[in-house]
């Protein structure tokens, strides 16, 4: 019971902070909406997309891009959570969490889950606006996508936690945005399908195929249509577990890098 109360408390605090920071909420929505309403509209006529699973017919670009933008919302939320962890560590409030009697791995996992809850709220707010713009996702897809969002949240949240255990100072975070977030997003199938990228460059397509975020986007894409892509699911789950495991080691009292920064 204590463990559940602790989980509830960490999620509750994260939600309180999220709702008290309205600019964070609007910032999280504006970014993908600009891509959807401006970028996708512009490319709608220029970019032709062949029929590829899970789609059973030709689709406009604005439909194709939605799973990628969902991934973008989750990726940026994970980075926001990571930034928040670094800030908490520098400001000292992380210590309140780390001196809880519950195991460190559990506390870090709770932080991850809290970040996932916030990211899912952001995703559904985005999907609500996207639905008003172009209602092309099956109604049931809004439900079947939920497990994929959770799995993707573990993958990206794990990455964020790992980064937060590695980053020494808050000032270094801008570098992370440039060297981690943008390559992760652009070197994936978020904006173009893999076959389209391969038409331009085999090397780029191979890099995209090695990027776990690609599989997170595809997992979401298939889930919108009530389908499970087993390869994507396997990559997301394994990569998520590895990243979370590394983050837990990073915060470990005996081996972690936290010892140098607290």
């Amino acid at each position, binding site marked *: 019971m204590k463990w559940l*109360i602790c989980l509830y408390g960490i999620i509750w*605090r994260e939600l309180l902070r999220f709702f008290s920071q309205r600019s964070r909420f609007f910032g999280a929505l504006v970014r993908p909406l600009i891509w959807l309403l401006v970028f996708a509209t512009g490319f709608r006529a220029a970019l032709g997309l062949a029929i590829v699973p899970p789609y059973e017919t030709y689709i406009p670009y604005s439909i194709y891009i939605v799973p990628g933008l969902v991934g973008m919302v989750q990726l940026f939320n994970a980075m926001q959570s990571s930034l928040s962890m670094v800030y908490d560590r520098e400001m*000292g409030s992380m210590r309140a969490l780390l001196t809880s009697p519950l195991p460190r791995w559990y506390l870090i996992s709770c932080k991850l889950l809290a970040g996932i809850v916030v990211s899912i709220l952001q995703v559904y707010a985005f999907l609500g606006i996207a639905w008003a713009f172009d209602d092309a996702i099956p109604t049931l897809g809004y439900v079947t996508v939920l497990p994929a969002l959770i799995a993707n949240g573990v993958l990206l949240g794990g990455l964020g936690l790992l980064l937060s255990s590695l980053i020494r100072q808050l000032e270094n975070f801008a570098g992370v945005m440039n060297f981690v977030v943008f390559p992760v997003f652009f070197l994936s199938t978020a904006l173009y399908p893999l076959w389209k990228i391969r038409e331009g460059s085999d090397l780029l397509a191979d890099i995209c195929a090695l990027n776990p975020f690609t599989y997170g986007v595809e997992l979401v894409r298939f889930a919108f249509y009530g389908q499970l892509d087993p390869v994507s699911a396997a990559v997301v789950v394994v990569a998520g577990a590895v990243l979370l495991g590394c983050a837990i080691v990073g915060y470990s009292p*005996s081996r*972690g890098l936290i010892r140098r920064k607290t």
Partner: protein
Amino acid sequence: MTPALEVSGVSYRFGERLALDSVSFTVEVATFTALLGPNGAGKTTLFALASRLFDCSEGTIRIFGGDLRRHPGAALARLGVVFQDQTLDLDLTVVQNLRYAAALHGLGHRDAARRIERELSRLGLAERRNEKARRLNGGHRRRIEIARALMHEPALLLLDEPTVGLDVPTRRDLIDQVHRLCRDDGIAVLWATHLVDELDPVLDRIVLLHRGQVRAQGRADEVLAAAGTADLRCLFDDPATVAP
């Protein structure tokens, strides 16, 4: 009787620098012990180890007999900590901060609400409960941090230079409150400071830390007698003169 805190042969290195060198001392139940030392003596490192922010490389730390490294959960459940840097979430209200701390210790809603009211009343902050921590002054923030550290009813309270940045009356008030906790509730207190005027030389025990080593420990008046001085400041100004 088992000591509240037992530090045995603890050493810790930051790279090449030895921050703590075979530190050993005890804090007895229901006593106020001051960890005295100048800046850089190793007090904050010791607090980080005693609250298991990270593990010590050598030695053991026991809280009421339980090894902190082997059984951290049981040990941390009996420990309350007030860190040197303020650690409140400034965007949350006083009650929200305390409720979060209660949840981290697994306290249910009803139990947490009861303890929050009790601690806020005890520390004279009941009327500030719904204010954001950001709007409180330094003294009030410190009291809230103490209230937070007491939420799970610890038997040992660690405070790392809690009076830094406070004016003299607020400092005095805070020290008196912590002494009352020690006397009335039987809580063992380890109070790190570099300000000797925060001590009661007759009632308090001291552990004198200098360059990562314990130079002296015992009741303050006994340590003074052994060092051949009547003024704590002499002891503090040149701790190297006290035999380890």
